[in-house]
């Protein structure tokens, strides 16, 4: 009798103590294969890239977010958060001043040296590395896990996946693939090669990327673009519409280009097209409409 009460009491005490224990640390492997020690329940996060800000908001975890980078312009609520420099040039002092318990960084964006300095200041940095739609969805899952929002992450990813599958189904019905040139830099003319999001979007949306190749961001001359004879020319624009109008006029002089002849020169929001965030699915849908308007005449 007494032993049983002891066991029960001990268990109760242990359970109570466990609940009262301070936040324990956990170890998680980031997308670069590094083992990162971080709090169980991070409360003060600094997002080191605009895409990460978007992901955290999409996961509904914005209350944990205490600092973001300069060009994190989506969603609108992000405007209230303090800035810590731009993602290529992080302001170390502002980051440290926010006393973060976790930073989320992006490979090939944030400078390695700054990340190392953050770590030497005992600030855990969880690095993500979304290289295509598939790994980006993994990124969302991983971030959801470490922020204890796995369920939301799962829903988000499933939604993205179903949208992607809908587009796949539509695109399966096409009979031709237009040649597409997506211009991400106005001067010099820069496009996107094979290992980029833009390339994947074009392929999935049912087009051919005329700028495909091993170089990630190749430069082009007007002549070269003319020689590639794109059927559709898309300019992702970060600046005002004035710049797009001018670029469109410049291209319109090359009347031999199919995209000019058929008046298929469009502009899209570069934030949506260049960022590895959930809005990439918006980009996919927009692009599919632009490349294959015929698929949507019968309704989505």
């Amino acid at each position, binding site marked *: 009798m007494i032993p049983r009460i002891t066991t029960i009491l001990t268990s109760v005490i242990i359970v109570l103590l466990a609940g009262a224990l301070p936040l324990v640390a956990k170890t998680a492997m980031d997308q670069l294969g590094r083992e990162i020690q971080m709090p169980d329940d991070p409360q003060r996060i600094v997002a080191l890239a605009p895409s990460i800000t978007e992901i955290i908001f999409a996961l509904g975890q914005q209350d944990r977010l205490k600092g973001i980078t*300069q060009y994190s312009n989506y969603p609108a609520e992000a405007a209230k958060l303090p800035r810590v420099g*731009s993602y*290529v*040039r992080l*302001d170390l*002092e502002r980051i*440290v001043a926010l006393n973060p318990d976790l930073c989320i960084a992006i490979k090939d964006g944030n*400078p390695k*040296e700054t990340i190392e300095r953050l770590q030497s200041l005992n600030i855990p940095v969880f690095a993500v590395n979304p290289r295509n739609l598939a790994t980006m969805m993994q990124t969302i899952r991983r971030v959801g896990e470490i922020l204890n929002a796995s369920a939301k992450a799962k829903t988000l990813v499933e939604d993205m996946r179903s949208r992607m599958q809908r587009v796949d189904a539509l695109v399966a019905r096409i009979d031709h693939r237009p040649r597409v040139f997506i211009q991400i830099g106005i001067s010099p003319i820069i496009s996107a090669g094979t290992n980029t999001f833009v390339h994947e979007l074009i392929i999935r949306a049912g087009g051919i990327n005329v700028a495909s190749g091993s170089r990630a961001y190749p430069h082009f001359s007007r002549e070269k673009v003319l020689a590639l004879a794109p059927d559709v020319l898309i300019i992702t624009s970060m600046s005002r519409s004035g710049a797009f109008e001018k670029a469109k006029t410049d291209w319109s002089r090359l009347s031999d280009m199919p995209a000019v002849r058929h008046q298929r020169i469009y502009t899209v929001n570069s934030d949506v097209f260049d960022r590895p965030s959930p809005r990439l699915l918006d980009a996919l849908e927009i692009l599919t409409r632009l490349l294959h308007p015929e698929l949507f005449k019968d309704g989505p």
Partner: protein
Amino acid sequence: MILNLKHHITRLIWISLVLLVFLLIAFSLGLSIGPTQSGMRSAFSALFSIGDSDSVLHSIIWRIRLPRVLLATIVGATLSLGGLVFQALLRNPLAEPFILGISGGSAIGAIIGILLGLSRFPGICFTSFLGSLGTLALILIMSTGKSILRKDALLLSGVMVNAFCSAIIMFLVSITQDARLHNIIFWLMGDLSAPDLPEVATLGAILIPCFILVFVFSHAMNILMMGKDMALTMGINIKAVTLILLIVTSFMVSATVSFSGLIGFVGLVIPHLLRLVLGPDHRFLVPACLFGGAAYLVLCDLLARTLPQQGEMPAGVITALIGAPLFIILLKKSRK
């Protein structure tokens, strides 16, 4: 009455003290001012209470501001000393490592080191030094007849080499596809924020012996003012002194370039300013340039990070914006 030993040493101590106080004031300002409002008192209490539990301010002061201000001190001292030495060796008031292309060559070496993925120390420092030696050799060869000290020839070759280096740097930047590109461009214009305390301490440890060496040669530089021939007849081994000073200075400059990129006009303005105030004796000018140059760059860097609303300007932009008009004013003054 001519300066005797006692007067000389007294004067030296006074000058050093005054400029040291200047430097300390600049240093304190640099430590206390930043995006995190802290004020001088809390900054200093964070500085001196090592292992304190108010770790945020402590981290900021020790790991972010202190390395930066210390680096500005070291780089400012080096660049102004470099300017002083080149002006003495070439007997030309426009000489400084930046204008002569030594900094440009160092930058090329450093960029190559960065693209090769080397660590800053010793890798990038080494490639940077090789770059500076390369441009130094180029300048000397181009301007040489029999004498490596023919002043105008040296300056002309230096300007050409500098232009050439700028072109190469632009080329390297244009072919870089890296995400590192942005950082390289910012670094090129003068960036004092990158290293942490141990690295800055290493830089200081390497450069302080160089400073001492240059000081030892300060009277030789005085004698060099008489011209190469005269200095020879006074017992100075011209070739050795010139070569040693050129190499040591190139080394010092290249080391700072590998840490902080291209910062110009410090080597031009500070020696001139100090010469106006203290006279031409290099035995006073060497320590004065060290402290004065350090204070100047600390203040310039402070402006660079506090003036813009968001982010910061490169330090090299501030030194140019202040330095160029200041130099013109100095030139006018010395003409009278």
